[in-house]
C-alpha cells in the first residue's frame, strides 16, 4: 500500500499554477526524497498534503484514507515539519510538547519518549528561546513524532543546520524508518542530501512531476558515460560512430560515449581492433545532480 497517493493534484494560484496534476505514489516504509529547485512547488505540495491549502483539483489519500477540507481524519497518520520549526519561545521544550500532546490527546509518557528519541531530555526544561537552531529543529521533529505518526512529512528539515546536525538528522531518520517502519517524505533542494538518504525520489520542476521512482530507476533513465582518452580521437570517433555508438567529443581531446548496449570492455576492444591506442577509460556514473539537471533542463522548453 502507498502511504501517500495523489491523483491529478493541482493547485492554481492567481498568476499561474502552483502544482499541476501531480500523481504522487509514496510507498509505505520508504524515504521519499521530494526534489526540486526553489520555487518548483515543493512547499505548495506539502501544504496540500497537510490540508493547509485546498486543492484546485485532484485527490489525496493517506494510507488509503481520503483527505479533504472536511475529512481531516487522515492527518492522524501524519507528523509534519513545514519549513522552519513553529515553537513557543516563552515555554520550555517539555511544555511545547505538552501543548501539542493536549491537542492530540496522546498519553503523557509520549513526551518523555520523543524527548529521548531526539536526545533533548537534558534540555527539556529550558525555555525554547534559549535553544540553538539545531535544538529547535530536533524539538520540532519531536513534535512531529509525538502522536506516533506512520508518515513524517518534512519540508527542508536541514535548513540552517550545520554539517554535524545534518548528519545527526540523517541518522535519526534512517533509525525511524528501520526501527519503526515510519515512511518519510522529505523535501529538499539539496541533491547530495537526498542522494545520501532517499530510497525513492520524486523530481518536481515548475509544478510538474518529472520523475518518480527509485534512485536506480532514475539512473537507468540516464546510462553511465565512458570517457575515453586515446592517441587518435578523430579515428576513434569514426570507429565508434560506425559501430552505432552515441559518441561526442569533449573538447579536450577526449570522447564521451553513453553506455547503452556495449560494456566499457567491449568499447575498448572495438577501438583496439580499429587500430586506436587507448590511454585511459573512465566510467562516469551519473550523479543525482547530473540526472536532476538533465531532467529539469529537458523540461525547460516546455514551460
Amino acid at each position: 500500500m502507498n502511504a501517500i497517493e495523489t491523483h491529478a493534484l493541482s493547485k492554481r494560484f492567481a498568476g499561474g499554477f502552483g502544482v499541476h496534476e501531480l500523481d504522487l505514489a509514496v510507498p509505505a516504509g520508504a524515504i521519499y526524497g521530494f526534489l526540486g529547485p526553489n520555487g518548483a512547488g515543493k512547499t505548495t505540495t506539502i501544504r496540500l498534503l497537510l490540508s493547509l491549502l485546498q486543492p484546485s483539483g485532484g485527490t489525496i489519500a493517506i494510507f488509503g484514507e481520503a483527505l479533504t477540507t472536511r475529512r481531516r481524519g487522515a492527518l492522524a497518520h501524519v507528523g509534519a515539519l513545514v519549513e522552519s520549526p513553529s515553537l513557543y519561545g516563552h515555554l520550555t521544550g517539555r511544555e511545547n510538547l505538552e501543548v501539542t500532546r493536549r491537542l492530540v490527546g496522546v498519553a503523557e509518557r509520549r513526551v518523555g519518549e520523543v524527548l529521548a528519541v531526539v536526545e533533548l531530555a537534558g534540555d527539556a526544561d529550558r525555555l525554547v528561546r534559549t535553544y540553538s537552531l539545531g535544538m529547535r529543529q530536533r524539538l520540532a521533529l519531536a513534535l512531529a513524532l509525538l502522536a506516533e505518526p506512520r508518515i513524517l512529512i518534512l519540508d527542508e528539515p536541514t535548513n540552517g543546520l550545520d554539517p554535524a546536525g545534518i548528519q545527526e538528522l540523517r541518522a535519526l531518520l534512517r533509525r525511524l524508518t528501520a526501527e519503526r517502519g515510519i515512511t518519510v517524505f522529505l523535501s529538499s533542494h539539496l541533491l547530495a542530501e537526498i542522494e545520501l538518504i532517499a530510497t525513492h525520489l520524486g523530481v518536481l520542476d515548475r509544478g510538474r512531476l518529472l520523475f518518480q521512482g527509485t534512485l536506480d530507476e532514475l539512473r537507468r533513465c540516464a546510462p553511465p558515460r565512458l570517457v575515453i582518452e586515446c592517441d587518435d580521437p578523430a579515428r576513434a570517433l569514426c570507429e565508434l560512430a560506425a559501430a552505432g555508438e552515441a559518441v561526442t567529443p569533449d573538447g579536450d581531446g577526449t570522447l564521451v560515449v553513453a553506455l547503452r548496449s556495449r560494456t566499457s570492455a567491449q568499447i575498448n576492444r572495438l577501438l583496439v581492433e580499429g587500430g586506436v591506442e587507448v590511454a585511459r577509460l573512465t566510467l562516469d556514473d551519473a550523479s543525482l545532480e547530473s540526472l536532476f539537471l538533465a531532467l529539469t533542463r529537458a523540461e525547460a522548453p516546455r514551460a
Partner: protein
Amino acid sequence: MSSYFRALAGALSAETLKLRRTLALRMCGVTPAVVVTLCVLQFGLTELEVGQTREAAWKAFAGASFALWAFLMMPLFVTLEAALLAGLEHSDRQWKHLLALPVPRSVHYLAKWTALVALLLTTALLFVGLIALGGWALTFLRADTGIGGWPPLFWLLRLCTSMVVAGLFMAAIQLWVAIRWRSFTVAVAAGMTATVAGFIIGQSRFGRFYPWTMPVQLFAKKGEHAGFAIAASLLGATVVLALSMWEFSRRELNT
C-alpha cells in the same frame, strides 16, 4: 459530537498552558489595578460629592471606576488581549503546525475565543476585588468620602459580569481582526481607532448600537439602554463568532 468536545477540552487545556509567562496573563491584574489606583487618587486628592449613605458612597466610587473601565480601559484591554492571544500563534507561524493536526479547525478558533472571554471575566472579577480594596483604602485616606463596611458585592458582581457580556460583540470583532491579520499593529490600530471613535459615537444616539460603547450603556443615562446593549452584544457576538469560525475553517495557509 463528543469527539468534538473532547478536542475542544484539549485545545482549552493547551491554551491555558500557552498563557504561562505571558504579558496577556499579567495584564489581567495590571489593567484593573491601574483603573482602581487612578480612582483612589481621584477620590483621595479632590473634593467630590459622594453619597449620603455608605452604599451610595461605595456606588459613587465603584461607578467612577466602572466609567473609566468601560469607556477606555476595557476596549483597550480587549484589543491588547486579542492581539496577544493571536500573536502567540502568529509569532513563530504556529498556525501551520496547529492546523496540520487532526483537530477540527473551528476548535482552535473556539479555544481562542473561550480564552479571551475567560481572561475578560477573570479581569472583571479581579476588578471587583480591587474596587473593594480601593474603597477600604479610602476609608483610611479620606474618611469623609463616607465609604465604609462591606461593599455592595452583589451589585458590583452583577454590573461587572453584565459589562463583560456587553463587551462580547466588541471582543468577537477584535479577535477576528487579530487572527485574520498577522500584524500586531493592524490589530492594535483597529482597536485603538474603534475605541477613540467610541468617544464620539458613544455620546450620540447611535452609542447603543456601537460595539465599543455597548458596555457604557449599562450605566449611561441611568442604564436606559442596558437591556438592549446586553442583548445586542450577545446577538452580535454570536453572529461574528459564527462567521469568523466559518472564514477561519476555509482559510488557506500559504505563508
